[in-house]
């Protein structure tokens, strides 16, 4: 089965208080040198059929209308290689 990954991230200009909270906790735990953290979402879509242009176009449409809110979020769509 083919897997397509959709990553959704808040746009850079949108404040990410969750990412900030994680970033502030890191030095307390001894993880130094991390200047910024942004938290996002990853969707793994298992396709029934082949990953062709039509399937990818439909997934982009799903990402645009549903998986991401493009008012505040950006998304990327990529095909995960076999065997990974």
């Amino acid at each position, binding site marked *: 089965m083919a897997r397509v990954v959709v990553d959704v991230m808040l746009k850079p200009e*949108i404040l990410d*208080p*969750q990412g900030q909270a994680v970033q502030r906790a890191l030095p307390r735990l001894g993880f130094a040198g991390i200047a910024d953290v942004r938290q996002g979402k990853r969707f793994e879509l298992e396709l029934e059929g082949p990953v062709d242009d039509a399937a990818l176009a439909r997934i982009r449409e799903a990402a645009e209308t549903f*998986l991401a*809110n493009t*008012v505040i979020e950006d998304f990327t769509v990529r095909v995960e290689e076999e065997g990974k």
Partner: protein
Amino acid sequence: MTTRVGVVTFPGSLDDRDAQRAVRLAGAEPVALWHRDKDLHQVDAVVLPGGFSYGDYLRCGAISRFSPVMDTIIEQAKLGMPVLGICNGFQVLCESHLLPGALTRNDSLHFICRDQKLRIENADTAWTRDYSAGQEIVVPLKNGEGRFVADEHVLDELEGEGRIVARYLDVNPNGSYRDIAGITNAAGNVVGLMPHPEHAVEPLTGPTTEGLGFFTSVLKQLVNA
């Protein structure tokens, strides 16, 4: 004829009963609407209540926005039917693109529950005619993702066209841009509000009864239409 105001129940709605009660106290007939039913049962206006529809999964309001009842509500809202979205209902309206912007996690990361002072900025919408512009009211506020955001261009447009319906006073509880607590569409029939006027309609349970005006406003609007 009695004015009929529909209140939608989504899976995870919490404040549908309170909204129905507020509608009744205002003098209209509340009509329970079910998220899977496309039929609006001849209602004259609709309230999308607060709560955590679909457990806030994906994003608040993102799944409810695609429910069958919303197809009809979006269609009717564009034709002028008054729609009020409270809290989760506001999130559904933004996800539906009936209202611009989005509601994101409170800047403090805390869920905030308090009696909140607001200033009614626009008393010309279908839901605010019983207030006067500049009037200050106190109603409960309870949200974890109530921070209104939009790009500068949209904010300027909202401001310029008088489409900011209510602003937070004294305290900005969630980091909303420009202290925005509620907005309206250009036509003034669709209003989204993060605080809860339906919890401020009776002295026994509310901090005030100053929330009732939203529900009496729409009644007058419909009777005079």
